[in-house]
């Protein structure tokens, strides 16, 4: 099962060619910080991503390959905390 950190529509690009998503929809919003590596998209269309900026409740990120993502650290994310 794909674990999505940040639900996103990867069709959407901003004027700088970055993808955009709502911070509030992140599984762990406090983990979404600049330079963070995460999985963004939907279970059917997702990508590794690096967060570029967070502004006004929106997360701006760019897609990277698994190899690029691994250069930022472990690709094994901790399981989400239970409520």
């Amino acid at each position, binding site marked *: 099962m*794909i*674990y999505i950190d940040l639900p996103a*529509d*990867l*069709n*959407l*690009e*901003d*004027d*700088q*060619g970055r993808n*955009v*998503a*709502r911070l509030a929809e992140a599984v762990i919003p406090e983990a979404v910080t600049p330079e963070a590596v995460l*999985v963004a*998209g*939907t279970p*059917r*269309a*997702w*990508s*590794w991503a690096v967060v570029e900026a967070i502004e*006004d409740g*929106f997360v701006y990120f760019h*897609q990277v*390959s*698994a190899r690029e993502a691994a250069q930022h650290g472990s*690709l094994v994310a901790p399981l989400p905390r239970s409520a």
Partner: protein
Amino acid sequence: MVKTRARRDDPAPRTGQRVLRGILGESGLDAGDLRQAAMLNAELYGFYGVSVWVADRDWPRERLEATKLVKFDRYAEFTVASLTGRGLSLWATGQRPHYDVVDERNDLESLVTLMAATPHVIRDNPSVDREEH
């Protein structure tokens, strides 16, 4: 705070050009997905719009499949004529070849209903990148 969306001064796409949008879920071009996309765009830029890619000589279908759509295993294919024939418009927004499909009245439900009802073909993406997770 709503941002100003850059609109390119490109000539209007020709009627026969292909308009592609990656499929987000399991059920094809889903009205709920279109609505969510349009609402997010309105929060960002102040108008309801659905992101699509318009193929042209510089951005043929094969290039779009391998770049902008590379994470999508399926995509919906419209033509410019099929969308404009329903009363929808294509705004050249952001960086080429990104466009927004809009209803000029900025009516969310009209945009979603008309776009979902526009004839389209669901295609498999032969260039999809299925990376290890």
